């Protein structure tokens, strides 16, 4: 007897067991909803599988997971906010731990997510990887397949826009 599809299924479950936690934890953190995170975990895994099967090491596999799960969750968040009634325009953190300064101190992740949800789409992924995940600019660039210069520009734009929402002396 030889294999193919069924054997693949065994490999799929091994990879799912191994990387599922990283995906699930990330989706929970970004979506802040257990049921949505559970659905997102399956969706992201199915999308990322091809890449992690051919990844040379775990760090590369994780980079794909970050890229695809960030993208997926941000889309979910956008869909949700489109469906929901528009919220009061300034229901935003009032300097409660929002440490967005030019040195890029890692800001409180919840604050970061609130700011990111309000940022233009093209700035969101970069901001998640940099502020929520604490990746270096270089890593953000590699993960998203863009130049480091683009990462720096987008982060700057993100910080400038976020200043409108955060009233803190040092910002």
């Amino acid at each position: 007897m030889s294999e193919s599809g069924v054997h693949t299924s065994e490999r799929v479950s091994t990879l799912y067991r191994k990387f599922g936690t990283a995906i699930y934890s990330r989706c929970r953190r970004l979506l802040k909803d257990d049921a949505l995170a559970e659905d997102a975990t399956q969706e992201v895994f199915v999308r990322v599988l091809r890449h992690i099967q051919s990844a040379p090491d775990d760090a590369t596999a994780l980079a794909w997971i970050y890229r695809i799960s960030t993208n997926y969750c941000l889309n979910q968040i956008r869909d949700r906010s489109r469906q929901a009634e528009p919220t009061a325009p300034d229901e935003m953190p009032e300097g409660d731990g929002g440490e967005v300064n030019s040195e890029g101190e890692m800001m409180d992740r919840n604050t970061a997510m609130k700011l990111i949800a309000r940022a233009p789409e093209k700035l969101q992924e970069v901001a998640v990887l940099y502020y929520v995940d604490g990746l270096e600019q270089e890593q953000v660039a590699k993960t998203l397949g863009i130049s480091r210069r683009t990462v720096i520009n987008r982060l700057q734009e993100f910080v400038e826009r976020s200043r409108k929402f955060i009233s803190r002396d040092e910002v």
Partner: protein
Amino acid sequence: MNARGHLSSETIDLLLLSALTAPETNDAKQHLDGCEDCRTRWRELNEDKQRFEQFVFARTLPKVEARVAAERGGFFSRFKLKFLVPAMVLAAAAAGVVFTTGPGTQTEDDAYVGIKGQPTFELFAKRGQSGVFPVGPEVALHPGDRIGFMVNPAGSKYLLVASQDGAGVFSVYHPFGAQVSQPLADVKAKLELPGSVELDATLGSERVVAVFSEEPLKAGEIEAALKASTQNPKLPGARFVVREFHKVAP
């Protein structure tokens, strides 16, 4: 540690996967000892690991596997099944019920069936480029044909599909090569198992058995039960559904 004085998600995820080098692991652990923020993230990740492994994995794996199989343009793509199911029902009716466990297992099974309803197991085959056809005792299969499976777990929690071929060799077909049965989604409808198995050159009568249970069973125990009796295998807590086909040279 990143330039901002904390561990990145990547470092923390790699630490959990035990994929950091020894010095990197030491650095990361040292940082965790001294940093409340990162310790919180590390703790959260470990809690998520527990949740994932205890609940989410088992709940979502069947759906993931079905999706992967479907996206690979699997053995039975969804649209084919629509044609397939009525054909199968007709064929099974024409052939009489294919082949099930003998009366010996009934006492134990009846209690099980009474609660759960009857789990079902169907075999399908595909030859070359031609379509999918149901497998019954009147159908001869050839080496190189591919077989796939459809089950209705009727609420059973675990499943393993195994085979004993014409030479008496035992193999686990689903999950392929597995040592234990796998959890099923809580479904009471027919579902197609992802993937398919290509038949090798061993000719003769092959029995394929679906083993439904409430607790995971070891492949070794199932093999022993089949060795004791292929017609009427018995194992506490297990419900066997046996199918048989003949493999002949084309």
